[in-house]
């Protein structure tokens, strides 16, 4: 069994990071030039880390799957980034930001990691402003803040509805500067297909496929950082970008890295509903819409049926026949309950038959009252862009008819297990951003993903990686000619050859869609024992079908989009099963993980701190073998543990 050492430094919570930095080992400038680092991914975490490590003098190789580092999916984040600056003077502190984050995550994150995240949050804002990120400002010229779900203070910094884009372009600029300088080497259109671990157990390189030429390439380094994002695309339909995949983390898992809390997936309540089975991607609309919109479904089942058939419209339903179910169930928070609660409530109504739209899988988000109260101008100023986007996609005017929304997969809190240094249990393999599990527990608060990506990339990895690299100077240059590289490369090539040789009848997408359905129905917003057991069986059967009947046309060299997808779906077909296993074993409801068996009489989540206050870190034991569960007990030394309650203030 793997040994889990979280390496949390001694001392009080507020002192741990300072103490760590004081005692960590360093690499001298002359030696940095001799040390190579691989960074996989150029989003906020990967881009920021590669730039910072390059600035420090290391030789960095950075890999991205798109044609440019600027395309990474961090760019799509809209809302904002949290920091405990307390500029509005409303009582925010580092501890409060920490506490909101850990509580929002239902106490399933590691105390020291989450505290450190809050601690460095302020540095991020300073750094980004210095890089020229055009954050919103007040008339006096100082930075503006807004409030966001799950917090009682205004601590979110934003750049219109494009905060992720601006932060990513900041990191991309820093990265470009280092590329120009020659300290960072950029490899575009490369997909990591495997991790190379040496006989001594250290991660020393990766195998990638050049998506341009189809060539399989080897790259070596003294340490590897994976920042490849989340695995939400296991559901086929999600708000994730098309190329986002679980390959890098999954192959690392199969090489011995532990996978922590895979079942913790976040579902975002305000997405544009699915409109046809040809659809490949869901569009997210900012959560801020819930500030003024009221969510409802018809009270009468027959009205809902008529709407589904297209015989009736939402505006035809009189006020007394509307069920504002969030306001009814959660009087204290109303439409502003956290993401997981709002999502589940929508699913509950739709499952009971009250959903709207052709599919019955949507609820109304109505701005009628807000427009009457505030005027159309105010609503336009606040949400104009979003309304326009909605109209372009759905072809309905949300100023006149209520919007239709439905929850969708958005973010994965689970990921590779890492210690306090963001190092996995494989020495030399570091994991940052959404790809690791560390900071959000069972549920992530809004505007915290950007914070974590940049915290890891700018301020944590550059320190902790040095601590590891300090005794690696003597190793010298690492060759890619070793037998380990040989072996892993051959395995990758065999995997590709096998996929190409099946020549079956099912397209990759059709199998991916079926996997998505299994996942959404059984491992989605609410889960139960029976469904999860069924899902595991179905995924196994589907996996078998995939490996005997998938159709991958074209050649393995050159651009082959179907082969790319097939390799990713092969991973998802295994990852999905692990998610179901994790969900099955976790017999409690926490954050994004809701088990129907564990709820209160009113249908609220019931956490079991007695038995499940731990990180479930799964260990690979072989193909088609049950993975082994390792537990890292979560100890809260300076944190009061509360039940989440949104019914009464």
């Amino acid at each position: 069994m793997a040994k889990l050492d979280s390496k949390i430094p001694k001392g009080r919570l507020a002192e741990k990071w300072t103490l760590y930095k004081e005692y960590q080992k360093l690499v001298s400038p002359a030696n940095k030039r001799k040390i190579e680092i691989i960074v996989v991914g150029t989003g906020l975490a990967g881009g920021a880390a590669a730039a910072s490590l390059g600035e420090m003098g290391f030789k960095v190789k950075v890999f991205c799957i798109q044609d440019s580092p600027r395309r990474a999916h961090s760019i799509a984040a809209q809302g904002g980034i949290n920091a405990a600056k307390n500029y509005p003077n409303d009582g925010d502190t580092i501890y409060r930001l920490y506490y909101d984050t850990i509580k929002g995550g239902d106490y399933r994150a590691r105390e020291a990691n989450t505290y450190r995240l809050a601690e460095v949050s302020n540095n991020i804002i300073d750094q980004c402003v210095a890089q020229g990120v055009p954050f919103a400002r007040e008339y006096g010229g100082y930075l503006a803040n807004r409030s966001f779900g799950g917090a009682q203070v205004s601590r979110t910094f934003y750049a219109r509805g494009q905060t992720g884009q601006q932060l990513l372009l900041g990191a991309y600029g820093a990265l470009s500067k280092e590329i120009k300088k020659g300290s960072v080497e950029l490899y575009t259109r490369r997909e990591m297909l495997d991790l190379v671990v040496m006989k001594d157990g250290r991660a020393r390189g990766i195998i990638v496929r050049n998506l341009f030429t189809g060539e399989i390439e080897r790259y070596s380094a003294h340490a590897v950082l994976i920042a490849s994002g989340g695995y939400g695309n296991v559901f086929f339909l999600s708000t994730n970008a098309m190329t986002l995949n679980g390959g890098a983390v999954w192959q690392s898992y199969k090489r011995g890295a532990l996978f922590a809390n895979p079942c913790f997936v976040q579902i975002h309540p305000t997405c544009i509903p699915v409109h046809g089975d040809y659809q490949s991607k869901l569009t997210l609309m900012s959560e801020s819409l819930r500030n003024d919109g009221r969510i409802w479904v018809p009270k009468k089942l027959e009205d809902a049926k008529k709407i589904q058939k297209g015989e009736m419209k939402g505006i035809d339903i009189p006020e007394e026949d509307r069920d504002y179910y969030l306001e009814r169930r959660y009087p204290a928070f109303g439409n502003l309950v956290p993401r997981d609660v709002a999502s589940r409530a929508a699913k509950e109504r739709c499952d009971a038959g009250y959903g709207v739209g052709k599919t019955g899988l949507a609820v109304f988000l109505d701005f009628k009252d807000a427009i009457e109260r505030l005027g159309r101008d105010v609503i336009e100023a606040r949400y104009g862009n979003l309304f326009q986007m909605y109209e372009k996609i759905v072809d309905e005017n949300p100023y006149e008819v209520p919007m239709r929304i439905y929850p969708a997969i958005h973010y994965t809190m689970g990921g590779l297990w890492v210690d306090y240094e963001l190092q996995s249990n494989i020495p030399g393999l570091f994991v940052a951003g959404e790809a690791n599990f560390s900071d959000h527990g069972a549920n992530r608060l809004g505007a915290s993903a950007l914070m974590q990506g940049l915290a890891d990339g700018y301020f944590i990895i550059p320190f902790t990686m040095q601590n590891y690299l300090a005794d690696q100077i003597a190793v010298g240059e690492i060759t890619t000619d070793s037998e380990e590289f040989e072996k892993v490369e051959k395995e990758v090539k065999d995997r590709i050859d096998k996929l190409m040789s099946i020549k079956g009848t099912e397209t990759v997408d059709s199998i991916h869609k079926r996997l998505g359905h299994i996942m959404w129905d059984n491992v989605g917003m609410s889960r139960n024992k029976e469904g999860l057991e069924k899902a595991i069986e179905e995924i196994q059967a589907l996996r078998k079908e995939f490996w005997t009947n998938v159709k991958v046309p074209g050649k393995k060299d050159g651009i082959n989009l179907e082969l790319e997808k097939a390799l990713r779906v092969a991973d998802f077909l295994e990852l999905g099963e692990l998610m179901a296993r994790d969900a099955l074993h976790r017999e409690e409801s926490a954050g994004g993980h809701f088990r129907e068996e564990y709820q209160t009489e009113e249908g609220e989540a019931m956490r079991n701190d007695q038995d499940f206050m731990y990180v479930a870190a799964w260990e690979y034991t072989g193909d088609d073998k049950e993975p082994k569960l390792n537990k890292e007990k979560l100890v809260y030394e300076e944190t009061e543990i509360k039940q989440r309650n949104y019914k009464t203030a």
Partner: protein
Amino acid sequence: MDLKLKIWRQASRDAKGKFVDYEVHNISSDASFLEMMDLLNEDLVEKGEEPVAFDHDCREGICGMCSLFINGRPHGPDSAITTCQLHMRKFKDGETIVIEPWRAKPFPVIKDLIVDRSAFDELIQAGGYISVSTGGVPDANAIPVSREKAELAMDAAACIGCGACVAACKNASAMLFVSAKVSQFALLPQGKIEAKERVQKMVAKMDDLGFGNCTNTYACEAECPKEISVTNIARMNREFFVAKIS
């Protein structure tokens, strides 16, 4: 709806390409343009043919990956959107749609509808950043920035680097792209310090890469999915002049 498609197919960078005709049937008018392309590709795969290669990723109009010159316009017949946000209701049943890659010397076609846009990365590497290292920066509120300037900088910073400006320009000029970056930093006090070097380096790089010259035709502004204004080009001209004479 049923549609006829004329799509540019080119096996590789050096291969000679040609237009190939395709038909798609029963497309929902609610489908997005790229979903229509997905269906075409799924069809081609079923038939054992090679699918059409095109760039796309986030499918929500922000990553800048999708391109396509559709019926004579970059990102197709709608304004202020990217191809992934274009919906089939903008077309008529039975219509013939001509789909071409971006055409510009610095953007060579590498397969079918995919072009190599690394020239944009090179432009940014030439100076499209503020030279600041991680750490050791002042408090974010130490330097106030007027709201007007911050908003103008944000207008320019909204660029997604898709290349529609180059594709639309009759001269394949990258002025809108370069000027947006130059403007963003020239407007902010943090970026002013190296503004002179930045504009000169970026313009020199732009010329080296073989982009055309601006003739103030403003097709770039009309086609920019983020509606970036040509006032940025004027600002860059000004910045460049000041940098040259001082």
